[in-house]
């Protein structure tokens, strides 16, 4: 009996003992790779390609940070994480950065002791159903069976949406997007609900995407962004300004094609500060002066990443919408590099 308790306590303490030391930047440099938590497989956002190389919109954030810190966008160890284990993995120090279409909420930021560094995709929760069900609105879903990933904000929004509209539903809890896809296609649930971008990405992989509709209701705000552990502000700053750099680069017209040329010096002082030919922004972060040159040179700016992974030219075909630059009527707005 006593031994059982002891071993239990050991296991718990073992979990806790993994908690990270303060200077993540030093750890990443010493390891030579960035450990990045991503989705278990969501086409366009994070999925391995035919050669097993991870690619996608969230993966690009990992690669950008690796390029900024280590100068090599490929020096990333990817950990595919389910929704349930992602925060534990981050808190225990198993990963340095979580870029896993994770919604920024108050309790996750404050109570779960994460630090969200920004938003890389403004999303909202939607519903997808078979076209032949004839459903045109989410409010007609009374009594429907709904596939839902456990441990997500969508799970809570779903409960609230059905409760406030006074309709009932049967939740089918699932762990990963792939599992949801299999259950949904087998007809074990009528509706699949997750972030609208995820629905579009999932639908794009179906044999007949046209047989499925995404219902018009968007029932929540889902600002998705990368996050790091609470308590290491320096590391948080690096990730935050790498993301801001990607966004500002699009606004200022810095692309992977012209970044090397612009790095030599331009007559725009903000571009010069960003690319290191003026001022010491890189050194303030503890990075090389040409950190953003590495980032943009290897992954491109925000717009390039968007178009390459989830934009209208890809099978996923998402419009920029809210994720356009503020100058184009969207919400992307980077603080100035000054």
């Amino acid at each position, binding site marked *: 009996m006593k031994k*059982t308790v*002891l071993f*239990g*306590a*050991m296991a*718990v*303490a073992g*979990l*806790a*003992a993994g*908690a990270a030391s303060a200077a993540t930047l030093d750890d990443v440099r010493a390891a030579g790779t960035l450990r990045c938590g991503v989705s278990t497989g969501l086409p366009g956002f994070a999925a391995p390609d035919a050669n097993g190389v991870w690619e996608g919109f969230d993966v690009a954030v990992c690669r950008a940070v690796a390029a900024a810190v280590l100068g090599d966008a490929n020096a990333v160890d990817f950990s595919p994480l389910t*929704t*349930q284990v992602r*925060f*534990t993995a981050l*808190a225990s120090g198993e990963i340095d950065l979580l870029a896993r279409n994770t919604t920024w909420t108050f*309790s*996750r930021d404050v*109570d*779960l*002791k994460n630090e969200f560094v920004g938003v890389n995709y403004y999303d909202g929760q939607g519903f997808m159903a078979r076209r032949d*069900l004839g459903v045109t609105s989410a409010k007609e*879903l*009374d*009594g*429907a*069976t709904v596939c839902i990933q*456990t*441990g997500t904000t969508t*799970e*809570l929004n*779903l*409960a*609230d949406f*059905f*409760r406030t509209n006074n309709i009932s*539903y*049967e*939740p*089918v*809890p*699932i*762990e990963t997007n792939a599992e949801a896809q299999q*259950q949904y296609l*087998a*007809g*074990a*649930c*009528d509706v699949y609900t997750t972030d609208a971008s995820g629905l579009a990405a999932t639908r794009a992989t179906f044999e007949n995407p046209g047989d499925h509709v995404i219902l018009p209701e968007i029932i929540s705000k889902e600002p998705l962004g990368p996050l790091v*552990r*609470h*308590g290491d502000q320096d590391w948080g700053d690096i990730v935050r300004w790498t993301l801001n750099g990607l966004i500002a680069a699009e606004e200022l017209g810095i692309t992977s094609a012209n970044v090397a040329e612009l790095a030599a010096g331009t007559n725009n002082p903000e571009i010069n500060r960003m690319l290191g030919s003026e001022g010491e922004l890189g050194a303030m972060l503890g990075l090389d002066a040409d950190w953003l040159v590495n980032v943009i040179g290897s992954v491109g700016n925000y717009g390039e990443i968007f178009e390459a992974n989830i934009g209208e030219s890809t099978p996923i075909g998402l419009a920029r919408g809210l994720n356009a630059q503020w100058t184009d009527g969207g919400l992307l707005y980077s603080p100035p590099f000054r």
Partner: protein
Amino acid sequence: MTMPSEAPKEAFRLSQLIYDTRYRSMTIQIFAMVALMLMLSWLISNTIQNLQALGKDFDFGFLSQPAGYDINQRLVEYSSQSTHGRAALVGILNTILVAFMGCALATVVGVFVGVLRLSKNWIVSRLMAVYVEGFRNVPLLLWIIAIFAVMSESMPQPRAFREGGGASMLFGESVAVTNRGVYIPAPVWGAGSSILIAVFVLSIIAIIAFRRYAAKRQEATGDILPVFWISVGLFFIPSVLFYFILGRPVSLEYPELGGFNFGGGIHLRNSLIALWLALSLYTGAFIAEIVRAGILAVSKGQTEAAFALGLRPNRTMSLIILPQALRVIIPPLISQYLNLTKNSSLAIAVGYMDVRSTLGGITINQTGRELEGMLLLGLFYLLLSLFISWVMNIYNNSKKLKER
């Protein structure tokens, strides 16, 4: 001649702590104790330190916060506005439900297969061997997923039950097997049903009393009463009689297709069925071996002696072999029940909302209370296991060899 001098009384030396058997065990125990305490204090201080580094505290207050998520299988009242504690309770009941159903079915399967494996019929015994080896040598998780996949991929969707959909309900429109689970009729307890239940309980008591009386009478006089038929009669006749006298208080509510799903009746979800069957068949294979070993452990001489006394084979089995075999069977059987109960946490694979999924999964994820949640979860499984072994030990003590 020299007088044998008395051995000089030796003073206590420190080395005696190691070399003297009188002290050695004490020394070892004290050292082990100190090491244990040191390890424990290190564990605790390490935990506290790391919690501080993460800026977290240790607080069970989250259990009274609203959970915010829905659970599909609820044995007690629960909504998304209920507390995390309530969600944990729903999970606990779901765990106990599947563990109980699993233990019951595994025992039936195990005893059946264990006896048949000793059959003299070659085909029957080989078939049972194939079952045992097949189930016990493939990981349980694969069986759970396999059964779940078969259920959700190959069964018809609820809408296939509409006119012209090609699927139909079984047993006179009362049971629907769909890819979302099995819908069976639910009993509706009307007015007067409590009297009916009382009558049923009374007739069970009457059966037990009658059996005792019959056994006593047989011991005293040697007369054998037709115990079986009278028991069957007592079991059915009073209940059926009162069912009609009270004007059929219990009726059945049949599942009916409406909207997206079947409504009414009892919904046995795919996750429950997959977990239940896989746990039962997997553990049943182990129990079959335990039963077979138990029967083989009773020496053949016992059978021969019983036959020599003129006992028929089935009486030999029930009066001579099984009581002795049980003594060998019960202790390992307890372990199998414990295994099954703990293996039910594999529910995660099919989304069955057991306590690991509610308290140990969603609640931990939404509140960030990993340490508290895992401790509670561990404590629950510990208590449940201790309770099962306590109950089974009582049974074991009633069956074990009485030495007088």
